[in-house]
């Protein structure tokens, strides 16, 4: 397909909790180069639901270093259109449109590297972290990993059993500590702390597990608010920003629909060409550019992947979501066109 999607067959599926299912894909030999991935990257899937095209990005939950198939793990979002569609409808043998792996939140193993990795995850934020942890255990033998993992209760922990197995098999190279907000009285599951992964929990975690390898790296993946909390707590302990790597996942953070886009006109520079595109009220910049017949880059359409990013040279927009952007991206005028609604009548947008 010329639009970047490839048809992949679902090898098998596996329920990992009551709310989450893993899907493994068969990648034909001819596509193995295109579908080579790094731990932490995600896939964009496309579906037509009730005749409407929808796209979502999901983190790959398996390491590229073990030879295991490409896999995503999708947790149901309450009322979520796509996550429920996938959990309800997709089964082994189905053909799904998938875009090649993408994303800058990733971990490349170094065979002789020696690092201490701290992972802070919550809910389905475990999926990219799980791929990273497996990668370290398989492909970076001198490194160790410490995971603080937040969930509502023992039953909602994704990869609970596989994490126990990994801990037991790797002679202290992995330590997992569970943090539960509402542990059940009936459960015999032993967890580390009650509450959230906040500054106090983070300080205690590092205190109990100080780095042995001194090249310490910190990876955070949780709902939007958690990443800010963890980053601030780490900075408060003197961790340099360059060692902190974060990714939000969009599903649990509702888009900011407080601002309505106005009717506008934008100039667009794309692939060396210049065009002028009208934008109707409420329409995102990306949709307007596509409607004009041009082929701008885009992928997830939910502000997670960053594929549609562009430079805003003039005018102002409201971003409904901006997970894929760092603060410094925003300061430099980078926007996610799929989430950008005009708030001034004239815009100028420039793609890379």
């Amino acid at each position, binding site marked *: 397909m010329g639009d970047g999607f490839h048809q992949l067959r679902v090898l098998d599926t596996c329920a990992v909790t009551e709310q989450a299912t893993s899907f493994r894909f068969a990648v034909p030999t001819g596509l193995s180069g295109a579908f080579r991935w790094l731990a932490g990257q995600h896939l964009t899937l496309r579906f037509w639901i009730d005749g409407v095209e929808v796209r979502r990005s999901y983190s790959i939950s398996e390491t590229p270093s073990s030879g295991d198939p490409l896999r995503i793990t999708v947790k149901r979002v309450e009322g979520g259109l796509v996550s429920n569609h996938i959990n309800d409808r997709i089964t082994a043998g189905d053909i799904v449109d998938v875009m090649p792996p993408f994303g800058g939140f990733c971990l490349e193993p170094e065979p*002789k590297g*020696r690092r201490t990795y701290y992972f802070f995850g919550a809910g389905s934020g475990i999926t990219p972290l799980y791929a990273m942890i497996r990668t370290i255990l398989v492909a970076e033998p*001198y490194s160790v990993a410490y995971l603080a993992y937040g969930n509502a209760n023992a039953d909602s922990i994704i990869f609970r059993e596989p994490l126990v197995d990994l801990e037991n098999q790797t002679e202290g190279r992995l330590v997992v500590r569970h943090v539960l907000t509402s542990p059940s009285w009936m459960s015999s599951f032993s967890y580390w702390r009650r509450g959230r992964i906040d500054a106090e929990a983070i300080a205690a975690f590092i205190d109990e597990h100080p780095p042995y390898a001194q090249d310490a790296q910190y990876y955070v993946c949780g709902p939007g608010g958690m990443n800010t909390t963890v980053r601030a707590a780490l900075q408060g302990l003197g961790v340099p920003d360059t060692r902190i790597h974060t990714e939000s996942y969009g599903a649990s953070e509702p888009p900011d629909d407080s601002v309505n886009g106005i009717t506008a006109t934008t100039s667009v520079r794309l692939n060396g060409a210049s065009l002028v595109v009208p934008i109707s009220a409420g329409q995102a910049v990306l949709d307007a550019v596509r409607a004009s017949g041009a082929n701008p880059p885009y992928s997830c359409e939910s502000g997670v992947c960053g594929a549609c990013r562009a430079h805003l040279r003039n005018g102002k927009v409201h971003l409904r979501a901006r997970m894929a952007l760092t603060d410094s991206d925003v300061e430099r005028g980078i926007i996610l066109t799929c989430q950008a609604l005009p708030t001034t009548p004239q815009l100028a947008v420039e793609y890379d």
Partner: protein
Amino acid sequence: MGTNRGMPILPVSAYTSQEWFDREQERIFSRTWAFAGFAEDITEPGQYISVQAGLNNIFVVMGRDRRLRAFHNICRHRGTQLLRAVGQTQRAIVCPYHDWTYDLEGCLISVPAQEREFPELDLSKITLRRASTDLWRGMLWVHPDENAGSIMQWFGDVEPFLGPHKVEELVEYKEGRTEYDVRANWKIVVENYIDGYHLAHLHSGTLAMYDHSRIKAEFIGPHYAFWEPLSADYAENLEKNAPYPLVIPTEQAGAWVPMLFPGIGLGESESSWSLFHVTPLAPDLTRVVIRTRVADVSSWEFTRQSFRSFGFWSKRIGGKYEGDGDDPMASGDFTKEDIYACEQQQRSLKSPYFVHGPSSVEGEAGVRGHQELVRDWVGDG
């Protein structure tokens, strides 16, 4: 080649001249990972140590995130040494000279009377020179280059040739720390350490508990791996005969005695673990610090073990020659025997009649290998 086997590889001047000494300091000891202490030397945020590593003085400090940072111990103002040997600081490092102050990331954060004295100075442009640090095998290491890379690029290949000891779990004891200033070049001290040929002879009365006929030794990169098994009579009743409580499982008993480059010897045996740290002080003067760790058990266990093994050792340990206690060759102490041999060699280098003699096939292969290594690192000019 004959019995010389390529010797001499290094000229006599390599062991006697200030010029060689200076080149080694610059090209070997200032460009490699250096031993800086043990993990327990820095255990709390703010604690620091400083060490001399070749030409560099480097300090290591623990941040509140419990990660160690290493910096060159030089104020970016006038070059004053910032921190003394050991101590505690909290959030800042203050130069004693003009109170220039740095945070634990090495960033300059304050300069007294800045508005008047340094109105044009951009503090954010000035940081301490970073170095590298890491823990490996319970030991603290520093490297002067902040981009030194992973310490396992340096030690990873030799690690499988080391003992199964868990160094962090063993404890250092006061009497286990000894220091010698040896009147010999550091290479003579190292060559003696890796010479397998002398063990059965110089140490005939002191190291008979190991089977020197079954040595396995080879260079792994720049590091010399060395292993020998216990002698048969010692191994036969090891639990009783060991001088101290065992530190590794009986079935793995043996001695790993590697010489890590440059000049970091380990002595990893069935009942103790020790570091043999060689520091060149002058062309003909070398400091050797030996730090020994043993099983973390009660002193009663040590007393009991020394009682049990007394009979075995009293028959086996003694000087090579009869003599009084001042004679190293009568001391019954293998370190004193080694120092004696090293100092005698160094003295002979001054004799106009000295020439290098033949070199043994196996036992002295390591000596030749180390000389080639030093030659390659120091280069020609």
